[in-house]
């Protein structure tokens, strides 16, 4: 059993890596459709990565070894974080490596190196991007954790698989706190994955870019890894949201049928979520940097309301 579990865990981890570009492609596709464009093919993201891996890698003279190590660290850390989030099945051994707080920590590790890499070459834009990224992260993190705490206090656990388990065991319960927590988590996800309205992955307009400013100096496989890591992060948040709030379908025993069902379920949920994201990005406009705090304060407020809702309405001591 244990061996199969480990194998499954590794398979799931690889699945994250494999699926990440697909989700991005899907979002782009839907977005293009909504904007009456044909848009790139669904697999374009894979092609981009392949192309980048094929290209020559250039590194500035002024760059230190850290600059070259950073992409790997970022990629691995993000991937590690993803491993802990149940995609197909609950209580896989990898889920026990890291609970949600560690996941946040691993993402922070990736961000730390991303920001350092941005400052390494010593260009103005890198520093600018790093500073902004750290600000956004700093504001997003409390909201994220508050939202997570709501879940954790309901399930009395911070291990995601136990949380999911608990929800499945409890069956369908309409919790007001979850509504708020979901909202908060969505906003945080937008901020953390650098989507509109916080950041725009599709632009290199100097004064507005955040994530792109940090990886401006990267090329070739380094750039590919960075991009890929970003895609994994997006997928990670997507899975986190759908599997924690709508866990139904995820496999509780490691039987082929359940796993298949789980896979199908998560794919469907992710497609829906991607579509929602695309719609949101189409209707919203990117906001100025100093409007972002307001945006994230809204997230924090929602998370707080969720927490209070949980304490007041659901436990009721």
């Amino acid at each position: 059993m244990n061996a199969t579990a480990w194998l499954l865990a590794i398979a799931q981890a690889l699945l994250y890596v494999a699926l990440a570009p697909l989700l991005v492609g899907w979002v782009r596709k839907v977005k293009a459709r909504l904007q009456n464009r044909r848009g790139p093919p669904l697999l374009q993201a894979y092609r981009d990565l392949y192309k980048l891996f094929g290209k020559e890698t250039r590194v500035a003279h002024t760059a230190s070894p850290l600059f070259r190590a950073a992409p790997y660290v970022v990629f691995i850390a993000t991937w590690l974080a993803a491993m802990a989030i149940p995609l197909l099945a609950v209580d896989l051994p990898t889920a026990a490596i890291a609970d949600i707080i560690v996941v946040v920590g691993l993402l922070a590790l990736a961000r730390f190196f991303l920001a350092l890499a941005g400052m390494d070459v010593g260009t103005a834009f890198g520093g600018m991007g790093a500073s902004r990224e750290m600000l956004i992260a700093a504001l997003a993190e409390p909201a994220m954790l508050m939202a997570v705490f709501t879940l954790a206090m309901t399930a009395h656990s911070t291990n995601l698989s136990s949380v999911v388990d608990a929800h499945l065991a409890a069956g369908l319960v309409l919790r007001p706190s979850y509504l708020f927590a979901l909202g908060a988590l969505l906003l945080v996800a937008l901020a953390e994955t650098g989507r509109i309205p916080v950041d725009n992955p599709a632009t290199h307009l100097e004064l507005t870019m955040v994530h792109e400013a940090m990886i401006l100096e990267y090329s070739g496989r380094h750039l590919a890894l960075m991009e890929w890591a970003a895609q994994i992060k997006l997928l990670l948040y997507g899975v986190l949201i759908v599997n924690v709030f709508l866990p139904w379908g995820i496999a509780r025993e490691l039987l082929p049928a359940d796993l298949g069902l789980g896979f199908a379920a998560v794919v469907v949920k992710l497609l829906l979520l991607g579509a929602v994201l695309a719609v949101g990005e189409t209707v919203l406009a990117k906001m100025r940097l100093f409007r972002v705090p307001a945006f994230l304060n809204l997230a924090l407020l929602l998370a707080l309301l969720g927490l209070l809702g949980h304490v007041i309405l659901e436990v009721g001591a």
Partner: protein
Amino acid sequence: MHAGLILAALALGLALASSLVSLPAGRRPWLLRGVALPLFGLAGAAATAAGITALLGGDAATAVLPLGLPWLPWHLRLDALSGFFLTLIGVVTVAVGLYAPSYVRGFENGRDSLPALGGFSGLFLTGMLLVVLADDAFLFMVAWELMSLASYFLVAFHHDNAASRRAAFLYLLMAHIGGLCILLGFGVLASFGGGFDFEAMRAAPLSFGWASVAFVLAFTGFGMKAGLVPLHAWLPEAHPAAPSHISAMMSGVMLKVAVYGFIRVVFDLIGELHWQWGVAVIAIGSVSALLGVLYALMQNDLKRLLAYSSVENVGIVFLGLGLALLFQGSGHPLLATLAFVAALYHAINHALFKSLLFFGAGAILHGTHERDLDQMGGLLRVMPWTGVSFLVGCLSIAALPPFNGFASEWMTFQAALQAWHLESGVLRSLIPISAAMLALTGALGAACFVKVYGVAFLGQARSRHIRGAHRPPVGMRVGQGVLVLLCLAFGLLPTTVVGVIEAVPRQLFGQVLPQATAHGWMWLTPIAPQTASYAAPLIAFVLVLLLGLAFWLSRLGLLRRVRRCDPWDCGNAPPTPRMQYTSTAFAQPMRRVFGLLFRIEEGVETQKDGSLRYRLNVSDRAWEIFYVPIARAVELAAARIVRLQSGNVRIYLGWTLVTLLVLLWIIS
């Protein structure tokens, strides 16, 4: 006699010896470098050994010295709690003993007196060791004030520059006031317990009111030393003023001694805890953490920045202690133990990485005579060893897995998340908010140290003397290396560390974390495996494995070689070092978002030569709110009172007459 006590006595003796040996160092500088500081390090080693014996042994050993008051000789006691802090002190001292000898070479041709440096360093260590060993109020106070006093002289070491003098003044004054508060706290306990030795105080039957008085006095006194907001004002002044290895001792160790005092008095002597205190401590702790990191983020002076971040970390420690108080006070010993262990864990982690960072700052100071971040840059290339060790320090203090800072903060989070056990809904909803503040603190801390590392070590040098920096000598590098290894060890083996620390709550609460290693040494599961788990070794393993893989591939040449070229930078003109983001620029968004909390003076002023200059001064609001008014009040009162001394003898006689008549009237 107990082995641990013998070792502790040895440590004390060595510390005193090191301070005595360095007295003639004025004429023979090598004495300090070659004898005193090695003895210092040895004292640290002995203290570590003593502490570990006490932690593993578990039983408390006592001794009595024929000193002190006639009816109150000096009592020494070595139990798990003091053992833990002995270890903490000792470890850092060893590192300092390795680092300092080559660091103090820089002072040998300076004007500042080496005997003072060596002598007071030894006394400083002696004081700290005695504080944690003391078993009666009198010895405790003697040791405590000895510690403050010695460190005061060390802060005033560079007394030619006015800032150091000012810092030293403020430091000693506040230390004295804090000491008096502690003394009065002991006074309360003693007057109820009928004796100044801790045994009697433990037995003291206290009403809630008097217990709270004692608690408030102790919290004020120890909080003042630990640098809790708003009593922290001396800290960012004093710590940077001292020589860097002493700054490491002060920030890394002395603050922990204050934590020890708080634990000893509140958890051990007062004993019966009340949850209201927990709320107060949590509030103060989280505010200190948040403000500390925000102020740290605003600093451009590296050592000041590190000092402010000490405020932050002490705040986190006290947050943990507050949770422990709260849980213990409302009858959840297991959770109290969890929070308590988290606090101790963070204490020792902070001791390690803060000393490491101060060593780094010292190395930069030693190599470039520069403390201003905005002058640095690209140091990683100039001093790679320091660069790498400093990076480890930054990762640890930024609480990133799998480094040690993360493990303790993670446990603190876990403790906060157990709030659902509490009966009162208000507390249930308040505590997670403090946890969210902790999250904000952590993220801002990460930002802060991204700034430090990015500005100081990455990019290009912003000034010539940085480019020409010379590498630290081997001793300093060894000192850093030891701490790097310890940081990694404490980060990767949390289960082992927790297992050792458990001896302390076993002594205080009679409670441990039974489930902590339910799944073996690799998985840390403080409450229960299904509640939360963290496998630092695995994470580190995967990280290293994959990184190694990538490195190996590139070595094999399976990956195409990278080509060096100029930075692109959106195709603008080739960037110059002055175009880099400075630390001020990096902090600008935070400064703007959290503007309310700072006192910002910003503007553009015209120089004499007509050139424009941007002026920015971010200062601590605590000054205008707490300190300036008090100083003003005293000045005013003094100005009023001196009119007594009018200079006219007839008025003096009048005073005598009036006093006489009033007294006569009183007695009739």
